[in-house]
């Protein structure tokens, strides 16, 4: 080949090589960019505050409060779980640790799950069927501080669970855990059983996870969810770190989530910090007195940083039906007339929620709007209904969280309204580090305590039977804060729970009406929303209607 041709050929080869190189790099960089987009959500530390409150416990065998479950959702690996999606899609369970939804036998009494292979805890230990049978044992064991599972009557759902709950058996005979196969033998068919397993009680735990009589539970333990608890000082700081062994479909965006509890703060400081981007989110939400200002500042709800989300909860004032004078049904009905709902809700500011004077919430089977007591105080009606029962009564103790500006207002307002019908009322501030402990204890000294209920699963049983079945009242760890125990009503609840379909809905509608019009064990207040602000840097805010919180593990600060 002549030189000039060699040179030309060389130039051609060089040019082709350069062209190939350029193309390859372009593809590579494009690929990096694409995968970088997905990965760009990851990273950083999500800084979260918890104002005017603290975690009761993050032990899955004892946690039964919404803020506890909000965190456990990020650390637990459930057989079936709620996805990281907003709206209705976020309330539809999907099989997470399970390979699929369970196989149910023809008679409906045998429910079998197969667990995916290769699932691990954050310490590398394997997740097996025993990880889930242990969770069941911890929610029912008499060796635990509380047997919360009994409130949902789990002890009556599974064969052998009652004997285990009574301390007569070492294990629950109706749960078979072999390798990666988990089988439940039910006492009777239960169409809600799978949805019950979506509760945060039933996350995978180590088969040797201990029982505990401490109300705070075990503070640190291996988890199989997107995060694990790296450190946990109840009432102070909880740190969650990403579990490198989790490869499920739920997100794990922040490298770590730091949650600081400020039980004595009313949320004003956290709000200022969020606005200055020193904090990402406050689990207490925006203080009621600031909602109007914040909403205007950020262009209204759900436009930028200010969000309002619905949830499946009912907020109420629990009357202690076992302590005078609220052990008298006429007094309770009088209080339902005397304490106005709308004035209290107004104090919460805009977008607070809708008033309600019944237990069930819209969307639940059996919900039928009840207008029993009205939204505004009616002192004349209250006096007429209460009659002589209002006279010569001991003072009503109103228990409230003094660290919360709004709860203090609410308590003072109720005190004032009660005085208008001739009764006395005292304010009883709580220990800000332990609000629920005293009211969960039988014989407690309060008459009225603010609390509420959010759906464990979407069935009226969860609202009525769980809260008002007096047979479940124990010495401590109660969920029935009303200490309401009426044998006739217990029978009606049993009958309703055995029904299905339209008959079930009808039965629960009747129970709801009877409960409030005849017994009035509570003062239902409103169906709340959650109003919260996120820092400017927080992206990918996904609100979950079931938990009533944005999903922490989905928030991106990377």
């Amino acid at each position: 080949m002549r030189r000039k041709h060699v040179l030309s050929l060389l130039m051609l080869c060089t040019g082709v090589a350069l062209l190939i190189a350029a193309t390859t790099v372009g593809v590579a960089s494009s690929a990096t960019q694409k995968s970088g987009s997905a990965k760009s959500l990851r990273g950083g530390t999500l800084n979260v505050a918890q104002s005017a409150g603290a975690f009761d416990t993050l032990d899955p065998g004892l946690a039964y409060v919404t803020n506890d479950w909000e965190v456990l959702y990020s650390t637990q690996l459930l057989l079936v779980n709620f996805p990281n999606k907003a709206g209705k899609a976020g309330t539809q369970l999907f099989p997470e640790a399970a390979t699929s939804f369970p196989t149910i036998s023809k008679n409906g009494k045998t429910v079998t799950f197969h667990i995916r292979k290769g699932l691990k805890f954050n310490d590398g230990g394997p997740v097996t069927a025993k990880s889930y049978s242990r969770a069941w044992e911890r929610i029912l064991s008499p060796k635990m501080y509380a047997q919360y599972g009994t409130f949902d009557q789990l002890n009556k759902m599974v064969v052998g669970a009652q004997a285990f709950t009574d301390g007569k058996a070492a294990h629950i005979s109706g749960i078979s855990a072999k390798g990666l196969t988990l089988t439940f033998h039910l006492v009777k068919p239960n169409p809600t059983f799978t949805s019950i397993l979506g509760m945060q009680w039933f996350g995978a735990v180590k088969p040797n996870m201990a029982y505990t009589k401490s109300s705070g539970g075990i503070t640190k333990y291996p988890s199989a969810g997107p995060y694990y608890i790296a450190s946990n000082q109840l009432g102070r700081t909880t740190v969650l770190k990403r579990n490198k062994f989790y490869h499920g479909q739920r997100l794990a965006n922040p490298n770590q989530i730091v949650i600081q509890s400020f039980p004595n703060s009313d949320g004003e400081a956290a709000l200022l910090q969020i606005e200055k981007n020193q904090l990402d989110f406050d689990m207490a939400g925006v203080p009621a007195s600031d909602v109007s200002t914040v909403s205007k500042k950020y262009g209204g709800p759900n436009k930028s940083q200010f969000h309002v989300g619905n949830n499946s909860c009912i907020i109420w004032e629990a009357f202690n039906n076992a302590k005078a004078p609220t052990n008298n049904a006429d007094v309770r009905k009088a209080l339902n007339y005397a304490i106005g709902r709308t004035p209290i809700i107004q104090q919460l500011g805009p977008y607070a929620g809708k008033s309600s004077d019944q237990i069930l919430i819209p969307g639940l089977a059996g919900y039928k709007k009840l207008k029993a007591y009205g939204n505004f105080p009616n002192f004349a009606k209250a006096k007429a209904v209460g009659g002589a029962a209002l006279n010569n009564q001991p003072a009503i103790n109103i228990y409230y969280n003094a660290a919360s500006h709004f709860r203090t207002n609410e308590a003072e307002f109720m005190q004032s309204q009660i005085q208008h019908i001739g009764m006395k009322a005292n304010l009883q501030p709580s220990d800000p580090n332990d609000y629920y402990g005293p009211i969960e204890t039988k014989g407690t000294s309060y008459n009225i305590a603010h609390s509420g209920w959010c759906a464990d699963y979407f069935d009226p049983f969860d609202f009525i039977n769980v809260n008002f079945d007096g047979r479940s009242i124990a010495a401590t760890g109660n969920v029935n804060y009303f200490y309401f125990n009426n044998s006739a009503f217990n029978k009606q609840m049993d009958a309703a729970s055995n029904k299905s379909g339209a008959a079930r809905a009808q039965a629960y509608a009747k129970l709801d009406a009877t409960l409030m019009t005849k017994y009035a064990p509570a003062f239902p207040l409103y169906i709340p929303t959650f109003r919260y602000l996120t820092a400017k840097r927080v992206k990918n805010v996904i609100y979950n209607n079931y938990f009533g919180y944005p999903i922490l593990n989905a928030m991106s600060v990377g």
Partner: protein
Amino acid sequence: MTVRVDTPTTIDVPLDVPEEPEAVKARGYWELVWIRFRRDKLALGSVGFIIFLFIAAFIGAPVAAHLLGHGPDAQFGYGVTYPGPVPVGPWKHIPALPYFAGEHPPASLVNQYGHTFLVMGGADNLGRDMFLRILYGAQVSLEVGVFATLGSVFIGVVMGLIAGYFRGWIDTVISQMINIVMVFPYLLFIIALQIVAGNKLNSITLGFLPNGVFELSLILTAFGWFYPARIMRGVTFSLREKEFIEAARMTGASDWRIMRSHLLPHLVAPIIVYSTILVATNILAEAGLSFLGLGIKPPTPSWGNLLAQAPAFYQTDVWILIFPGLAILFTTIAFNLFGDGLRDAFDPRGTI
């Protein structure tokens, strides 16, 4: 020739001798103190303010409540505007309805509760009359300030006197007690006390005090006596070596008699001076503790818990911050100026 000089036989020399010498009036110790004190116009002004404050709190408050027809805890739904809620500002007329019944309340309800009234100082977050709450809050703050001071001074004087007079191991023990109380983290103690026994202590009223006053006075006394004790101990040390003490001892006076009759009168001046300053300190301490939710509990008004509502409304209703804040400011300044004036008045080196 001789010049005749008439030499008078008598010489009239005019003498301006007064008939009687003018008596020098002896001034008593207290008279001297008063003369020195009244020259301090600021101190006199502060005394006037303090007297006015006591009259306003203990006489004016019930009179105002009677004239207005409601007490400091009465809630009015229209004392707050919505959306918000935002308390109404000063000098507004509001209907006397006990709860918010909508933008246009039913006529029957309006007729039932009748009148409107003027909220001179604005309303708080529950529609309560701020003017009355500040007046009644003054009662609480003054009661806590005075009772805590009386308790602290009593214990401090006794301990300081005993420590300074006896010295030796008694002084060592009492000095260590003073040191312990000085460094004790009383805020943590108060938080723990509130959790354990707060409700019971809060309800002790002795029949006439508002809720929480007794408890807070007790706490401030328990942690405030070290200050006067140290002062009294120091003064007693210096007085102990004086001749009049030795003379008293030589006459056979007992230790307790010497302390009571000879030392204690000399401590009156520092007791009075530091008491007034301690009242201001205790009023500030009460305000601080109530602001933190550890002092006077709602609905009992105190300047501290009135201030505690202010952060929620500082952007919309700054009066909730200003009025109780100014009340605390002027009161503590007045007591401090009063104490300064007394200290100068008791100083024997001061000019008359």
